């Protein structure tokens, strides 16, 4: 028992140490990540004064919100398509759906790069947005599909029995029922988009950048504590997101679930 507690403590320590290490040195006036001179907020001021960085943050947000919204819409209908598909097709569709989830990022990035070049789409905002939508769709599908499958098929029969046409069934029965899955899918897509580096790195052009790509290029130049300050802010933002997500799913399951 003692050993197990020690083990878990160690795991959690290792998991969180790098993050708190970053946060700790974001207040260091010394300029390095190994010698703490004195407390300062200068790095935060630098972040907020860096318009280029702020624009990149804005771009990242826009890409994340737009791509996850669109991916959610397409993914929900994709899940419904798979749900209604005949048995043999269902397996094929699921396999195709999961290709992008199991592919290494470099392959996704490289193949999309070829695709955009051939299609004549300029690398930049559009190509990054399309890529993010593309790799988020299967995640949404995988979050929504279990909800659909757990729905009793008699629910649809019941609606039809009560006079509902296909449109009524979709809007009054299916969509309300799978709402928790839709939310989960949306948030998953959001985090995948915010987190993605490899795919974006391939399909982004010169003029356009997301946070991940920007951090990469800054990190390659060595340590700069404004990156620490930025990561502290991002970590706080993530925490807020987690809490929001938690509250929403709790409320949704309290409302929708009955088991």
């Amino acid at each position, binding site marked *: 028992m003692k050993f197990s507690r020690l083990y878990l403590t160690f795991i959690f320590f290792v998991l969180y140490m790098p993050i708190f290490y970053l946060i700790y040195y974001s207040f260091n006036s010394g300029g390095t990540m190994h010698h703490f001179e004195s407390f300062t907020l200068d790095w935060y001021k630098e972040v907020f004064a860096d318009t280029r960085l702020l624009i990149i943050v804005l771009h990242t947000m826009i890409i994340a919100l737009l791509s996850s919204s669109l991916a959610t819409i397409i993914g929900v209908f994709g899940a419904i398509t798979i749900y209604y598909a005949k048995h043999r097709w269902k397996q094929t569709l699921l396999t195709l759906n999961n290709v992008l989830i199991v592919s290494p990022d470099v392959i996704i990035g490289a193949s999309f790069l070829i695709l955009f070049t051939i299609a004549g789409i300029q690398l930049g905002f559009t190509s990054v947005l399309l890529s993010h939508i593309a790799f988020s769709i299967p995640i949404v599908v995988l979050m929504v599909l279990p909800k659909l499958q757990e729905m009793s098929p008699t629910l649809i029969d019941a609606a039809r029995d009560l006079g*509902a*046409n296909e449109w009524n069934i979709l809007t009054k029965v299916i969509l309300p029922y799978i709402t928790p899955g839709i939310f989960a899918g949306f948030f998953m897509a959001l985090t995948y988009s915010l987190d993605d580096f490899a795919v974006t790195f391939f399909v982004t052009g010169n003029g356009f950048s997301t946070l991940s790509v920007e951090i990469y290029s800054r990190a390659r130049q060595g340590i700069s504590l404004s990156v620490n300050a930025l990561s502290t802010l991002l970590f706080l933002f993530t925490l807020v997101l987690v809490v929001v997500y938690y509250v929403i799913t709790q409320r949704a399951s309290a409302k*929708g679930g009955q088991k």
Partner: protein
Amino acid sequence: MDDRVIIRFNHVTKQYDNDLPVLDDVSFEMERGKFYTLLGPSGCGKTTILRLIAGFIEPTKGDIYFHGKRMNNVPANKRQVNTVFQDYALFPHLNVFENVAFGLRIKKIGKEDIERKVKEALRFVNLEGYEQRAIHEMSGGQRQRVAIARAIVNEPDVLLLDEPLSALDLKLRTEMQYELRELQRRLGITFIFVTHDQEEALAMSDEIFVLNKGKIEQRGTPKDIYDEPVNRFVADFIGESNIITGTMIDDFVVEFANQQFACIDRGFAKNERVDIVIRPEDLELTTVERGKLRVRVDSVLFRGVHYELCCYDTYGNEWLVHSTKKADIGEEIGLHFEPEAIHVMKRSGGE
């Protein structure tokens, strides 16, 4: 055509792919305002008939008529038929009121009318005051009532009930049997009730259809079916019975267990092999001397109202007896029965 007929099946077959048909060339008529029960083991085709009437599936062959009009391809949402589902299929995201109002809202009925009709339907099933409850706050029996209210609020000509009582416990089930029967009388519409529980069928129906392997074995009033089963399957499925093979010696004389007995059946060929049914409650315990059959008691179970005795005669036939008198295991006893208690049936093909 008789205008009391509301549903007519004309040589209807339902078959999936190249499997055996789940419904095999079935024809029947159902009348307005009656309580029908489709009874049979699982996979006999009873639910298929229900789904064909509801419009969830289409027949492979044959025609279905409502009020004399062919309805084969009319989709479920355009039929004057509503269903109470086995798992109730209540919408978990809607409260009681909205569940009941679902069909009315689809029909775009005015707000006040909806309010009035929903209230009325809920009063009908004794659920006044539960309008704002969430479905998961309702008990099994209450959900059952909501499902019924949701169906009858649309004023269907026919109400289909797909084993609606199977999820309830025994006490509630008996209660709901009375209530459903009462509800059908008050509404005056046709109920078609699907079940595999013979007691339920006997207690509630005007008419029972006994189904097996996609065919109707027998249709008739509960009394007909109980007293005069047409074959071994029906006799076995409806109630506990002693079924043994015998020979029809002549009109009114039948032989089984190596003895000849007087009976009330006639019209069989001489020496035709037949199936004999005697219900356990028609067998009377008596002394060996006075009994028509001599048996040895093998086991005794106390069933509350009566004892259930399992006995064997000297030829190895098993005799189940329901009696208020007790007998000891291993004891030799006599069994007495009246000629009317013997039901003679044509032998069915299988088995």
